[in-house]
């Protein structure tokens, strides 16, 4: 059962997970054409979180995952409850992705198909990947990443060639000052997508060499962060201040591409990107929930896959509409709920670890000192 992830595979999943579907949307749309600056700020803050909280947590317990850490440092009962909450958080994240994807597929690709079927199929593919194991899942990520990036580059290139990009739309910078830009970034964009790196506390222990973790998380993180900033800039440069009005601004942007009268209708590629991105994000959370549940309840992974999938499906059905899902997400979750799991709890965990280690070291020191005193 010693499943191993190589550094390159970790990097691929970090990129896929971070980009997910977020590059298709305009993040921080309240900041209007300064949205990309908000994203950049959030990215730097998220990096700080990663550098000073998430990775230090892992390096204090290199061979355990989040669940093991929680039960070890928070005690058996509190740890169990917090662990359960984290499983709920992972599941809820997956629920949001599945539901969002289902709604978008019905909106853009299959207007006549029942939502349930779209979601069940997506979850079934995820479950299949998860049953094959962590190794296979990360390998699939490595396989798909170049293709998704290639499609992005192709679409960017086509946008540039067809003369849609007008960088003047990005000006003037800070039209309404710093405050709205900052407000758009904190905490919304930190919560989504940059703070979500917390989920890797479940996977890091499987990386072959522990020393690789820092490098192969931070570099891909920076890459995908810059990538999201870039797509945000591009969306604004193509669509201007109106970009916030579209459901998938990137899709609308690409639908404007027309070269030589035959290169048009790039929508299938965008839906491919959407599918690829959402699949990996959804499945990463699904996998994290499955692994966490298996660890917490001490059962084998295969037993948990279907129940967790069923919970995700039921959860995704609870939203009455796409709008409700978006509203709940952006109005409440991003501001109040997600930061608990992404920022507050990790910081507490780190503090407990630091204190605990301090005690232990003192104790060890005392024990070491004791014989010499005799």
């Amino acid at each position, binding site marked *: 059962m010693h499943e191993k992830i190589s550094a390159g595979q970790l990097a691929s999943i970090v990129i896929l997970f971070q980009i997910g579907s977020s590059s298709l949307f305009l993040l921080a749309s309240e900041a209007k054409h300064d949205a990309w600056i908000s994203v950049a700020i959030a990215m730097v803050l998220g990096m700080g979180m990663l550098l000073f909280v998430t990775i230090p947590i892992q390096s204090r317990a290199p061979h355990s995952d989040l669940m093991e850490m929680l039960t070890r440092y928070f005690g058996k009962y509190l740890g169990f409850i917090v662990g359960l909450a984290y499983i709920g958080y992972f599941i809820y994240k997956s629920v949001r992705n599945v539901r969002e994807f289902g709604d978008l597929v019905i909106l853009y690709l299959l207007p006549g198909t029942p939502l349930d079927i*779209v979601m069940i*199929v997506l979850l079934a593919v995820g479950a*299949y990947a998860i049953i*094959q194991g962590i190794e296979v899942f990360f*390998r699939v990520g490595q396989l798909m990443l170049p293709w998704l990036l290639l499609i992005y580059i192709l679409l960017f290139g086509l946008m540039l060639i067809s003369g849609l990009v007008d960088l003047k739309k990005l000006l003037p910078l800070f039209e309404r000052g710093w405050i709205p830009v900052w407000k758009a970034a904190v905490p919304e964009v930190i919560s989504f997508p940059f703070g979500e790196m917390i989920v890797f506390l479940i996977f890091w222990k499987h990386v072959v060499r522990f020393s690789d973790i820092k490098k192969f998380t931070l570099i891909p993180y920076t890459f995908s962060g810059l990538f999201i900033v870039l797509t945000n800039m591009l969306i604004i440069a193509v669509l201007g201040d109106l970009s916030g009005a579209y459901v998938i601004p990137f899709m609308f942007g690409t639908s404007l591409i027309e070269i030589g009268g035959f290169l048009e*209708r790039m929508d299938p590629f965008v*839906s*491919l990107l959407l*599918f690829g991105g959402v*699949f990996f994000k959804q499945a990463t959370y699904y996998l994290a929930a499955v692994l966490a549940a298996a660890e917490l309840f001490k059962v084998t992974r295969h037993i948990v896959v279907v129940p967790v999938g069923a919970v995700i499906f039921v959860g995704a059905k609870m939203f009455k509409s796409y709008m409700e899902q978006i509203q709940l997400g952006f109005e409440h979750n991003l501001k109040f709920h997600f930061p608990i799991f992404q920022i507050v709890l990790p910081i507490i965990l780190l503090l407990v670890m630091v204190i605990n280690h301090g005690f232990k070291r003192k104790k060890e020191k005392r024990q070491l000192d004791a014989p010499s005193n005799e």
Partner: protein
Amino acid sequence: MGQKHREKMPQPLSLHLEDNLASLRAAADKRSDMVIRSFHVPTVNQMEYALVYIEGLVDLTSINESLLRPLMSVLSVHDGDSAERFAAIQNCASAAGPTVIVEDMESLWQQIMQGDTVILAQGYRQAVASGTSGGEWRSIAEPTTQNVIRGPKEAFTESLRTNTSMISRRLKSPNLRIQNKIIGEQTQTSVSVLYLEGIADDSVVHEIQRRLDRIQIDGILEGGYIEELIGDAALSPFPTMFNTERPDAVTAGLLEGQIAIVVDGSPFVLLAPVTFFAFFESSEDYYQRFYIASFLRLLRFGAFFISLLLPSLYIAVTTYHQEMLPTTLLVSLVAQREGVPLPALIEAFLMEITFEVLREAGVRMPKAIGSAISIVGALVLGQAAVEAGLISAAMVIIVSFTAISNFVIPSPNLSVTVGLIRFTMMLLGGTLGLYGVMVGLMLLCIHLASLRSFGVPYLMPVAPLIWSNLKDVFIRFPLWSMRTRPDGIAGKNRIRQKKTLKPQPPQPNPGKE
């Protein structure tokens, strides 16, 4: 049954020649091709002898000229004691071929069945088997399934020894190991495992040996039996062992650290471990200049995707996403489909099945009536069906292009697999549109990523990513730039060639003006 057979104690040979011959006759009851040639030599003690062999498995001239004649002349003047006489028999037998001394009925039978001639003599509990195997085999011919324009034109035959000789002729290294095994309770088929010591991974060699030893079956008739019994991912439609009828391909595989399994009676040699991308390689890739080879390889990958996805994409787009087509194309498609009574999915299914039937017929049909199939296929099923308004012309184009793309994949067993998966893709495309196709592709990727061939991940140089191996996957780098053997397949000895093999103009000698 086999188990019981093993537990039985072997029956030792009797001192009396007549008893031995009687039990041989009893064992070979109703077996008319066994020949027993008794003779006696008028020496001092009037010895009785017998030669036993199976007609057709032996080389008769070698028996008559090299075995029987010297045997008789030596024995007729021999007057030593019985041990000396036995040594003399063995000596004579060596003239015809390698000898083995057998002491029980069972191994005696085994030797006879392998084409040996057994010499029995009155008064000995031992017999001498002399390697006189011969008989008729198909001669070496051109490959029928893996053709090249440039490259060796010979293919393996059904004879194990001919096949291994074709490999060792190309690979004169003393590190070439050829290990024999007998598999199959009834057929007693010889199976040879070939590898290069130091270049092949030892653990994989052991694993293959272990899996071969596990096989207990009545018969092995083709490498396919071995492949199915020892291959990984028993339930996957994808082949996890490579088969080829080209000795040069096997040699190249051995040089990269693969292990070859040659089965007697089959002109196809198995290679393992193998990755998915090996099925897109042709021997010719290495005989043509690398630009051409790389272009052809990319073409094959393109053809693979066309063959896999084209019908399903067509179905998905025409059924669910008409808005994605340019207006003029859409109008002409709609005009064609106007009179067609069937939905696109059914139409495509019908045509694809028709094509598969045609292909199967083309393979199985006697060659003499082969030309009929092109008439029936092309004219009746294609043109007439369109003219009758049963199928749209666009569908015929799609199906034909798919079919031709399918033949571009160099490995026949992968192209059949692709054909199978194409039907699933069509179903997905017909029910869930582009979303279905994407789901299908994702499932395919997950499945491929989960496969392993003797411990080597199936998608190896790509996922897990190994940069140095990518030199020979989508693009074939120039030979002089591929310095190392593929990582992950080859064992300890990695270096293939010197660093400075890139051809360069001769350096001007500074000494001479």
